[in-house]
């Protein structure tokens, strides 16, 4: 494995490791973006209006039980005849990844919006906030921690599952697994697995970092250094009941 990873020959060319990582990331991030565009507004809508709550449990569970490889092959059979190019393979892969990522984002966004303190929303309305402002100023910032943790688990799933694209002769780090298996080259397979794990770990940390930056310490109950309006710095008390992000 070490040998495989440190062999300079594997780090260049059309099927070199950087290319594979690049492909892997592109599939993953496009899928995540599409999933977020679908699941976040839907989760907010259901959370705010309470309409379609049945979808959350039903759809989420159904999608979770999805056999990804089986679905991928089915979709290729259905879709690829319509697209002569590589698109006929890329599209099915993306659909599978999106379907995997929607449930965690949807359920967490919904749960996040539901969990917003009803008294805070009531106070906002009572002070004369209009519906849109309540959403942008109160409901969204307060549901951000849960929403982002949904995005985080979705991205982990996508990165680890994006390997299946290689089944249908596309790129990505799955190549190392499939080709390694075909060539009985265990070091190549292990290298692929390790790279996927590292990639997942890196993005998990990145999202954790982003979460810490954008979520108010008032919600995570993190202890922050408080500054007086005069500019003087005072340490605030330590958190009594720290909650995980």
């Amino acid at each position, binding site marked *: 494995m070490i040998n495989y990873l440190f062999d300079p020959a594997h780090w260049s060319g059309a099927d070199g490791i950087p290319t594979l990582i690049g492909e892997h990331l592109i599939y993953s991030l496009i899928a995540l973006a599409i999933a977020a565009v679908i699941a976040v507004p839907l989760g907010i809508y259901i959370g705010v209006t309470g309409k379609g709550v049945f979808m959350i449990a039903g759809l989420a569970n159904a999608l979770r039980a999805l056999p990804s490889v089986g679905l991928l092959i089915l979709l290729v059979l259905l879709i690829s005849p319509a697209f002569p190019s590589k698109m006929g393979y890329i599209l099915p892969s993306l659909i599978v990844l999106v379907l995997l990522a929607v449930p965690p984002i949807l359920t967490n966004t919904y749960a996040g919006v539901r969990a917003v*303190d009803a*008294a*805070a929303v*009531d*106070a*906002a*309305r*009572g*002070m*004369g*906030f*209009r519906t849109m402002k309540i959403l942008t*100023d*109160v409901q969204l*910032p*307060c549901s951000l921690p849960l929403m982002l943790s949904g995005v985080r688990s979705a991205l982990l799933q996508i990165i680890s599952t994006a390997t299946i694209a290689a089944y249908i002769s596309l790129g990505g780090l799955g190549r190392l697994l499939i080709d390694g298996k075909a060539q009985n080259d265990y070091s190549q397979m292990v290298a692929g697995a390790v790279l996927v794990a590292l990639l997942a770990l890196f993005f998990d940390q990145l999202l954790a970092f982003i979460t810490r930056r954008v979520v*108010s*310490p*008032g*919600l995570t*109950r993190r202890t922050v250094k*408080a*500054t*007086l*309006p005069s500019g003087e710095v*005072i340490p*605030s*008390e330590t958190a009594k009941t720290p909650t995980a992000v």
Partner: protein
Amino acid sequence: MIRFESITKAYPDGTVAVNGLDLEAPTGKLTILVGPSGCGKTTSLRMINRLIEPTSGTIYLDDQPTSGMDAALLRRRIGYVIQHAGLFPHRTIVDNIATMPLLLGESRQKARHRALELMERVGLPETFANRYPWQLSGGQQQRVGVARALASDPAFMLMDEPFSAVDPVVRAQLQEEFLRLQREIGKTIIMVTHDIDEALKLGDQVAVMRVGGKLAQMATPSELLTSPADEFVADFVGRDRGYRSLGFTAAAGSVAVGEEWTVQLGASAAEAQAKATGAWVLVVDAGRRPLGWAQPEQVHGELRKEHLNLSGTSAQASGTMRQLLDAALSSPSRRGVVVNEHGELLGTVTATDVVKAIEAEPHLETAR
């Protein structure tokens, strides 16, 4: 002025929460809605800022019907304090308080400045400015809620059980501070409570509601105590209403204050014995402020702090009959300590003197 004109609210499930309510909350006064749980107090309050729409009837704000107004703009004219404060958990205290000024288009700097001013006004230290709501106690959060409602300096305020989420000691303290604040700012306030003592203590006038959403009586606190409209009001106002109504009767000069000999700490047992009336002698400090009562026979050597009995309350001469009577009843010597507004001793009264003065008073005069 806020005026209800035959307001009825029937919820979709058929519950009639408020039934033909006529009510007027005069400008600059604190009007309290009080009544048993489920009698429609919250519903009535929330119809004013149209968080709930009445089924029929009209509510007027300074003679303008609210039904024709834009609901959001109407709400921005009315400060609103809810039971559990309802602070924004993701915003700091200063930003929470600055919410309304910002909404009304003030600059950030001005809004924050105003918020800091209000923190001082409601007794929150400046160091809390950049804390988040979870770092505050319930009572402190409640103060922030009041400050937030005051920040836009609205002419009207609605308060739904603003002091109910805190323990009795903190509640009494918040009530006192709120009374003081209202004396300064004189807003038109409607406050909801289910605690009759709070209603009597705070209200300029009190509206007692009965289950079914009907007004049982609207009167000043002392009127409620001395002439309840019916059995329901009498029961609701409570058993010891006779005694409590004394809390609205000014003592001012009607009770003769007797002279009382005093000693200071450090006095000898003999001196204490000489100054005592009966078994007890009153101990004061160098400024003639009462410290407590002592029994000379228990003093050996000199009179020290540990000899003091602190059970007695003291009443201001300008206070109420209730305070005078309580001073007499709580004193171990049965002589109630009376002080002036600086806390300096004027003399003592006995319960008999107070009761005589009460009986001599044909019609009760209210203290405020």
